[in-house]
């Protein structure tokens, strides 16, 4: 078996702050090392990961989380490298302010995926956070760099205050995406309400999206179709209440 596997023994009884699990250098950690890293459970305090889950395997820069991790908050926060896979759903604030590496969630993720911590000025600054299902509200808030992808729907206020980076939504996007963004891209392959502070620029075929979507198809097996690759996109510039160098690219046909 290659890589580490973290398998929950049972459902988490309360919200568990997992922000310390993969912060800093973790790719060289053994299963025993990782099992000693703390998880902070609401109302109970810090416990070692090993008390909640079985950790096994050999380090190779990858880790798989198996079980019901919906109560796990801030999993992969501050990630700087390696590949993280969550085989089911994930909780709130996954990939919070991550800076590198990749996180792939097979199911849905909660609120504020890839966003900034409440006290911080920047969300994701690098890496790839790919959620095959849907993500909650404020995904990618204050993103500075990196890629955030939702295979399903995206909640309201996505990419709020985005500084740069890319958010791709395969499903419908909720109200007020990209509000207060400076730069960066919100790519919508489904429905998207364009905020009033964005202005239509043109309809065209962005070549860079062919690169991006081809990669998502090849690396993450996301359901990219020919119409996405060769289709036309409406480009909206915004947020014009801010710098206005951001964009919404909305697939049309």
């Amino acid at each position, binding site marked *: 078996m290659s890589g580490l596997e973290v398998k929950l023994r049972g459902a988490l009884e309360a919200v568990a702050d997992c922000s310390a699990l993969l912060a800093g250098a973790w790719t060289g950690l053994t299963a025993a090392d990782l099992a000693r890293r703390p998880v902070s459970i609401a109302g109970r305090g810090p416990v070692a990961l090993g008390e909640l889950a079985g950790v096994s395997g050999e380090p190779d820069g990858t880790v798989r989380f198996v079980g019901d991790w919906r109560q796990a908050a801030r999993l992969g926060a501050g990630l700087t490298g390696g590949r993280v896979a969550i085989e089911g759903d994930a909780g709130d604030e996954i990939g919070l302010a991550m800076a590198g590496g990749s996180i792939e969630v097979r199911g849905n993720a909660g609120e504020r995926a890839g966003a900034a911590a409440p006290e911080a000025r920047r969300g994701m600054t690098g890496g790839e956070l790919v959620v095959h299902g849907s993500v909650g509200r404020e995904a990618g808030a204050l993103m500075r760099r990196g890629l955030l992808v939702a295979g399903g729907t995206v909640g309201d206020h996505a990419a709020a205050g985005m500084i740069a980076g890319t958010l791709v939504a395969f499903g419908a996007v909720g109200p007020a995406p990209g509000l207060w963004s400076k*730069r960066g891209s919100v790519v919508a392959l489904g429905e998207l309400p364009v905020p009033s502070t964005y202005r239509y620029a043109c309809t065209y075929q962005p070549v*860079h999206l062919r*690169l991006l979507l081809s*990669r998502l198809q090849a690396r993450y097996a996301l359901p990219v179709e020919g119409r996405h690759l060769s289709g036309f996109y409406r480009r909206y510039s915004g947020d014009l209440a801010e710098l206005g160098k951001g964009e919404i690219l909305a697939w049309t046909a």
Partner: protein
Amino acid sequence: MNIRGAFIEETFAEAFTMRVARIIITARNERWAREAALKLTGFATSVIGCKVEAGIERQLPDGETPDGRPGLSVLMMTMGKDDLPKRLIERIGQTVLTCPTTACFDGLPAAPDRLGVGSALRFFGDGFQASKVIGGERFWRIPVMEGEFVVQERFGMVKGVGGGNFLILARTADAALQAAEAAVDAMAGYPGVILPFPGGVVRSGSKVGSRRIKSMIASTNDAYCPTLRAITATALPDTVNSVLEIVINGIDAEAIAGAMRLGIGAACREGVVSISAGNYGGKLGPHHFHLRKIMDGAA
């Protein structure tokens, strides 16, 4: 050694180490990728007068290009490593950026030496340019009147080989041309090589220096000029009335040797007296392509 009546001389082609970049040009269709590639590789036959040697390497199927569109790969080569980024920036900026629907990508992603190309061209965007990091590589999006020009930030550079060659010595000019065309056709699309001269063929092979003008670095190869047979130290057999040269540059010596084998094999046909090669006695270039060794087993 004889191949279909053509004598393979006991000699070798002498070639030099050059620096190489591979540029992938894609476009909405093959027509526009080729238009850009032809301009990019124009006036780039020899560093003697062109600063860069370049040519189309091969046409790429859609599935082989980074953006999945039709494309071509081009090799650009210079003698010095400092020259290559300058040539890439000025040529891509004036030919690929200007050509409708094109995009431009690095074709040597594994090369450790990286040259800033898109990072320089982005300034054409006048502050409106934007970049995207995709798979760890940065791509610049430069707004243009047609839409957007996408160019990769960095291009790989490796050591390659320039100046592989062979000479076709024929009874008539027509026979020499037909043999040269057959050789070029046989080598077309061979991975890792380019033929930088017009149609892949050189009629004006040169020797080092000049008999009369000290400042000239090259002048006509009088030993192979049939019109000078009577008044110079000729290298031509009596029956030869025309000579054409094929020059081959490549990513490495193996690619050149492979292409030469195909080209020489195709050139050995009716009307060709012999196949020779250009060298400088083996003292200038580190790469020697011995014709008989390359053609071993083909006779």
